[in-house]
């Protein structure tokens, strides 16, 4: 299906755009709605929306995973992509209004930003689902790779909630950084390790790391063109978490232990990075953030498992 590669590129471009936008906010501020990063993000999402509508119209097969609305057949994954893209675009004016009312420098976790991030994350999950369903209908390598790619971008979007911490300008207490960095990678890693047992999580973590390096390069380029400042986010190190996820899932380790293990590994492998980047992970923050992060990691492991239970699989 020709639509999927476009959606995959759209998801990555969205990720580049949002990180660029945050760098713009930190270093330049915010003058109008039509800043270069905003134009980049919203035109990209418009393309994603149009492509998802095109995909829905083009693919009306009598396939087992297509939703049935009377005489219509809708691709289940593309419906989710459409919902996410529509959410981002529909709330774009609300985001602008919010900035006009409450100022330029409100946090990433402001309500309209959260709606936008929800839209992006939903659209990416829709892309992942579409790829996987296509792979089930026709086991071709291209669909497998698009699935891995979408999972890596889903991991990227889930880590975006930490952007203020990665940019070293947090508006919330440090324990949130530890908590979310420990817990959030677990969803995507457990999901893909269960779907694709042949080093799926490791490959996903590798693709994610490559994407983040591409993002770093992108921010260098925009900075050199005076289209952003010099702020660069830290890159979380998740390859060991991916390896561990594959190992634990392959060994059929109990889910709670899998979540605990992946969470611990995400924390431990980023601890040297936190010390090197001077993230100020003080003791009080560790006492609160780490246990809660591990608990959330276990819960998210179960969440990923319950999603996988509803998906078709190869054994």
């Amino acid at each position, binding site marked *: 299906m020709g639509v999927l590669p476009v959606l995959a590129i759209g998801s990555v471009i969205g990720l580049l755009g949002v990180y660029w936008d945050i760098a713009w906010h930190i270093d330049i501020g915010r003058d109008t709605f039509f800043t270069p990063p905003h134009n980049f993000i919203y035109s990209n999402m418009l393309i994603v929306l149009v492509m998802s509508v095109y995909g829905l119209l083009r693919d009306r097969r009598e396939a087992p995973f297509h939703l049935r609305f009377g005489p219509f057949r809708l691709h289940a994954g593309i419906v989710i992509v459409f919902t996410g893209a529509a959410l981002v675009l529909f709330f774009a004016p609300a985001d602008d209004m919010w900035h006009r009312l409450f100022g330029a420098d409100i946090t990433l*976790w402001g309500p309209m930003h959260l709606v936008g991030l929800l839209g992006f994350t939903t659209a990416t999950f829709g892309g992942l689902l579409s790829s996987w369903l296509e792979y089930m*209908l026709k086991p071709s390598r291209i669909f497998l790779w698009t699935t891995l790619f979408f999972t890596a971008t889903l991991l990227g979007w889930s880590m975006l909630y930490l952007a203020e911490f990665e940019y070293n300008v*947090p*508006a919330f207490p440090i324990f949130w950084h530890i908590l979310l960095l420990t817990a959030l990678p677990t969803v995507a890693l457990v999901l893909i390790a269960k779907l694709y047992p042949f080093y799926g999580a490791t490959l996903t973590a590798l693709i994610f790391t490559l994407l983040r390096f591409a993002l770093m390069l992108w921010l260098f380029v925009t900075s050199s063109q005076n289209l952003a400042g010099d702020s660069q986010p830290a890159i979380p190190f998740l390859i060991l978490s991916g390896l561990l996820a594959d190992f634990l899932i392959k060994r059929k380790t109990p889910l709670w232990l899998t979540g605990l293990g992946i969470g611990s590994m995400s924390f431990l492998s980023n601890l040297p990075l936190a010390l090197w980047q001077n993230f100020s992970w003080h003791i009080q923050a560790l006492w609160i953030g780490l246990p809660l992060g591990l608990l959330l990691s276990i819960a998210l492991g179960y969440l990923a498992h319950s999603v996988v239970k509803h998906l078709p699989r190869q054994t």
Partner: protein
Amino acid sequence: MKSTILLSLLFLNVAWAAPRIQMMDMNIDREGKHLILEVHTEEQNSLAEMSFYIYQPGGSRDFIRRIVPASSPGVYRLEYTFPQDGYWEINLRHGIGLDRYYAGVDLNIDDFSQNYTRRTVFQGDLDTRAPRYIQSIGFAVFGLLLFTTLMLIGAILRFIKPSDVIVNKPVIENTVKPHCNTKTYLLQYILMVSLTQKAKYALKALVFLSKEQQRGPILISEISEREHIPKKFLESILLELKNHGLLQSKMGKGGGYWLNKDPNSIYFGHVIRIFDGALAPIPCTAKRYYKRCDECIDENTCEIRKVMFTVKAAILNVLDKTSIANTVNSDSMNDILD
């Protein structure tokens, strides 16, 4: 609906706190280029932090960040050694999210040589062009959208339903002989085509453990010997049964395997699904393990599929009703087959 409202209220609460203007006292204690900056705030939340952004002289926007937790309620202490003289600027940020306040301090390292105290006011980050409750409404809208999106995704996933594509290679057993009873013949025919060695050995081991249940833990070597199952192979099978909660084990002297469940509640169908997956004769008739046939034109009019649904129903009728305990009791077995 109830949970939607609860979720929205939760997010509504995020921005409910009224804005506060924080006062702070700064005690600046300097020795050489070493600075001790102690900040006292009116708010005395022990979980609060103070962010210090230290900007270098010369208008550079590069900064060093230090985040300091309260050393005692309302007291934050920063120690920093300046690498050079000149005008240094320190920005302080305090508070959480939308309730975030900032203040700035300029220090000329060349000029001051004594300790002093300064009193200043934290400014709010949030513009006040709109009433603050609008923020709360924004969070409530986000809560509603989050809930609705999750519900939509959940509904779509429930529609898809699980379906495995089985690639396990069947082991053809020639030892199974057709029986005069039609249902038994059907069952034996299907098992002959699709039951793997692993599933068969698992069933044998379970039946054996059921018969010897009174004895407690039984060694692998004994099961292997009595049922003629290779020991290494049996180890992996029993481990898998244990992982699925059907068996329990104990190491060391007096150890071994025993049934973790009542043999009346362990059904053949369950065990075969663990090792071989679908019980359906062709994947498009499976419910949990559905897969459309590659060459299929229309499932609804496919004659083979219709027949295979009947076959599947007959298989399930036997395998999902036959427990390990039934095999021990021949009367109840006959009841099922008839």
